């Protein structure tokens, strides 16, 4: 089985998010970058699936050269090889077009993405690529299993879950529950340095949307400390008006 895992390079979850002075750009200074946590889950599941078989796991990132340490980390987790599409992504449509273009030239049985990228929170890439490749896509996948070419998928729905089945190829946006993230071991880290990382030029894509400005959330007012539950209920009713 040939699996393609899409990874995005995002600020560490503990990062303070700040912007430049005119609020048009994310301030990257002092920020540690990691593999998007959901993509780490997708990658770990992909590595699990090919273990002990002749299957391969290719990771793809659309990004400039600064994402390479993140790609090497994915190779250390156990990917076979990597591709970087050399462009600073502009929006999810741009990213999806690059991935779809690359995937049409290859042919993958399974394409995995995370349910969403924790930077721009689009939750778009899986369904966009699915549409561009004319294959089924399932966003927010909690679990999946493959038997021959048939795949059974559990997706999250409001208040429950839905179980779907289809034939490969398919693209999934994976969430927690699919598997536990794998921690790279020493052998993985050593071998990652020499695994192939191919850099390819981006294809031209018209821009459909851009971000014009960023804002930080307004700080909340001072907390009111309350001593007893009746007083709390009273405040929630009369002041906050939520009860």
């Amino acid at each position, binding site marked *: 089985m040939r699996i393609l895992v899409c990874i995005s390079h995002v*600020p560490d979850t503990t990062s303070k998010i700040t912007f430049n002075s005119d609020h048009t750009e994310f301030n990257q200074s002092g920020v540690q970058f990691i593999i998007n946590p959901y993509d780490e889950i997708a990658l770990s599941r992909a590595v699990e699936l090919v273990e002990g078989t002749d299957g391969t796991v290719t990771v793809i990132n659309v990004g400039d050269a600064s994402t390479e340490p993140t790609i090497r980390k994915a190779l250390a987790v156990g990917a076979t090889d990597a591709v970087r599409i050399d462009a600073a992504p502009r929006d999810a449509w741009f990213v999806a077009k690059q991935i779809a273009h690359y995937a049409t030239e290859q042919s993958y049985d399974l394409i995995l993405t995370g349910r969403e990228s*924790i930077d721009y929170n689009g939750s778009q890439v899986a369904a966009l690529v699915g549409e561009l490749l004319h294959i089924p896509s399932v966003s927010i996948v909690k679990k999946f299993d493959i038997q021959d070419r048939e795949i059974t998928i559990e997706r999250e*729905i409001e208040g429950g879950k839905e179980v779907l089945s289809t034939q490969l190829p398919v693209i999934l946006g994976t969430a927690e529950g699919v598997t536990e993230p794998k921690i790279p071991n020493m052998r993985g880290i050593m071998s990652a340095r020499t695994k192939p990382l191919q850099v390819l030029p981006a294809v031209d894509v018209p821009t*459909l*949307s851009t971000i014009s400005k960023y804002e930080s959330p307004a700080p909340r007012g001072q907390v009111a400390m309350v001593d007893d539950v009746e007083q709390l209920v009273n405040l929630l009713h009369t002041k906050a008006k939520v009860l």
Partner: protein
Amino acid sequence: MAILVYVENIEGKFKKSAFEVVSYAKAIANEQSTSVTALSIGNVADDELNKLAGFGASKIVKVDQEQLKQFINKAYASVIAAAANSEQANIIVLSNSFSGKGLAPRVAAKLEAGLADGAIELPTFSGSDLQVKKTAFSNKAFATEIITADKKVIAVNPNSHEPVRSEETAAIETLSPSVDAGDLNIVIKDIVRATDKVSLPEAEIVVSAGRGMKGPENWAIIEELAAALGAATACSKPVSDAGWRPHSEHVGQTGIVVSPNLYIAIGISGAIQHLAGVSSSKTIVVINKDPEAPFFKVADYGMVGDALEIVPKLTAAVQAHKAN
């Protein structure tokens, strides 16, 4: 050039999010001096469909055929894109629900439209560009997205636009699109839905608990408080990782993002990753035995003490309040 709004039903009924998106579309239509066409796919009775007119739909298109009874994102996206074309709609609105997240990008790709995912406010217009605010960096920031493409799809976050009544008289039209077999090559085998529970992303009140609860055996008091409030239950990541609660309850940067009117955090320390998923809640109450817990810094109301003692008393106080 009507505004097209797709309304999702659950087992033939519209949830609040359906009225939210119709009302959102109506606000745009007013600004653009046009009208709202609502599109419903699946088996929904006419009296349920008519409710959409009460929130501003002046035309209701229903697609109710056997092959499209159940939600399949590919097939539904084809129907929505076709309806957008026949209505000559350049703006398509839908809910950024779990299903919406799998659907909106497909609709946008079919129409080569720009997609604003997770909109939290009404858009503004300058010339043919549309600007709309959305959350970014997992609730740690907001971004204003400009859609420059001619066609625009807006996926509106649940609970971010209060439905406003606007009575219209709407005719119901039935559309019977031909469905491409290639759009149906995925089968739904089972749907499991806990109907007695309030769904977390849409809940107006959320009662959430963390490691301070000590173990799963202590969750009965959390569920009782939630039941008294008509709230959904949620938890921190280590709680679902330990299997004390299902993953579907995990909120935060790597879990579900919620923005209820009231979020009650019990025995949760307030780690940055947790706060990212809950900080847009309108009112936050924190109950923690440690007065130095970081969560108090972002709370509106706080109580210091043992959750196992406070929570049952709070439940009783809520019940007493509701009985009045």
